[in-house]
């Protein structure tokens, strides 16, 4: 996996697996933290294709200790599934600013990925059982959400107080 640090932004690309060492993660987060003064470290995994349990474990061993104020941006679909399954992702000083989500156009059978801002495009609420995500019109095509909000936004439901504070 490759990593770029620009100011307080840390951008990963490739595959998150056992190839990334814990000390590498710590050093990039430390560097971003030095750059960001009072700001949070923005972590962008949108260019990472996928992860395995080894890479996830290594990442969580660093971030769940709470030493780094991290805000995830542009969270990819595969990582949302991890957020919803693994509680440790939200342990520590963690917030989520924006996520990616699949949308589907029934007329053209196309799927697209859109970036949604938490607190703006996604209202912060305790549960999403009755919530209907609006259709998005892009280039004249209507895209429906290709996910179940009550499942996809579980990470918000489970951490509602935190999201209310930061929204």
């Amino acid at each position, binding site marked *: 996996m490759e990593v770029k640090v620009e100011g307080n932004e840390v951008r990963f690309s490739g595959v998150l697996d056992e190839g990334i060492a814990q000390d590498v993660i710590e050093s990039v987060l430390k560097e971003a933290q030095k750059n960001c003064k009072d700001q949070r470290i923005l972590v962008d995994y949108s260019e990472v294709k996928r992860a395995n*349990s080894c890479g996830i474990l290594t990442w969580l061993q660093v971030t769940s200790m709470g030493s780094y104020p991290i805000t995830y941006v542009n969270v990819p679909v595969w990582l949302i599934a991890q957020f919803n399954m693994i509680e440790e992702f939200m342990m520590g000083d963690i917030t989520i600013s924006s996520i990616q989500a*699949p949308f589907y156009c029934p007329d053209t059978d196309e799927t697209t990925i859109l970036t949604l801002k938490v607190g703006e495009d996604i209202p912060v609420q305790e549960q999403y059982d009755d919530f209907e995500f609006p259709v998005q019109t892009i280039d004249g095509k209507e895209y429906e959400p290709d996910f179940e909000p009550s499942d996809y936004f579980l990470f918000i439901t489970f951490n509602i107080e935190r999201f209310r504070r930061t929204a």
Partner: protein
Amino acid sequence: MTTLVKVVLFLPNWRPIILKKISVVVRAAGYEFAVAKSSEEFSSMLSGSTAADYLIIIDSNHQEELKKFEKLRSNFRSVVLHNGKPKYLIGFLENKSTFASIGLSEAKVDTRDFLILLRKAFAKNIFGIEKYLARDTRFTEFVVTDEKSRSLATSSVFNSVESLAGPADCVKYRQYANRAAEIVDELILNAVFESNPNLASKNTYEPFKISNEQSIKVKCGYDGETYGISVTDPFGSLSREKLIKCVNFDFHKEIGPGAGIKLAFDRIHRMIANVEPGVRTEFVCLFQFKSRMRLFVEEPKALQFYSTDESKDAS
């Protein structure tokens, strides 16, 4: 010596169309069968001759009946069906007789899968992903002995799924390709580090190199409807209890051994574990691409466990 097999369906309140589909498949498998409409009828059917082996196909709400029957006789096997809400129920595999827990939604019975399940129920010939895909499916095979060959297998699986995309499907098939690669990766890691007694003390993020005798075999193929992945190790250390523990893995408590199997199971529709104890374990993972990711994610799951220790030749 072959033994008569009798199939008993106990699916009260299930839609007649599902009973009909299952009945057709049971007849196609060449088994005698009967449908019990009540608990009394069910008990009465099974209290007959002990000459036959029984295969019980039962609704998940009637586990007590199954437990009662397990106390009375041992020459039977069972399949538990549930309505897909929740997506999967694996507690039933704790019953010694149960080798499959299958979620069905609406009236969808995969008849080919069911036929294979019936044939494998009492057979020693339980291995092979080929059983689950169309006859002329072309498979790609990999032998994993180190990080390089593991990376090759994973990236090849990714590319093989991504290449199925038409111009409008790129985004969707990339998501599927990610899933397929994640599955292969996790199963290989499990085969290398969890199943191999020689590497039990090694951390999964350390590089590995294993001999050809200890190598992991990976196979994948797509028959136009179902995509299949199999990963086979030459150790045969998987047990029913271990499988249940892995699939029940609770990420809220820890991350560690078993996490990989859980992650793989979370990403597929059907997982079949075939074991020859002390010799080999094969995980077969199957899924079907859907036009919408949401439909893919919501599809009910099936988990099956076969061990040559639990099977015998029958017809």
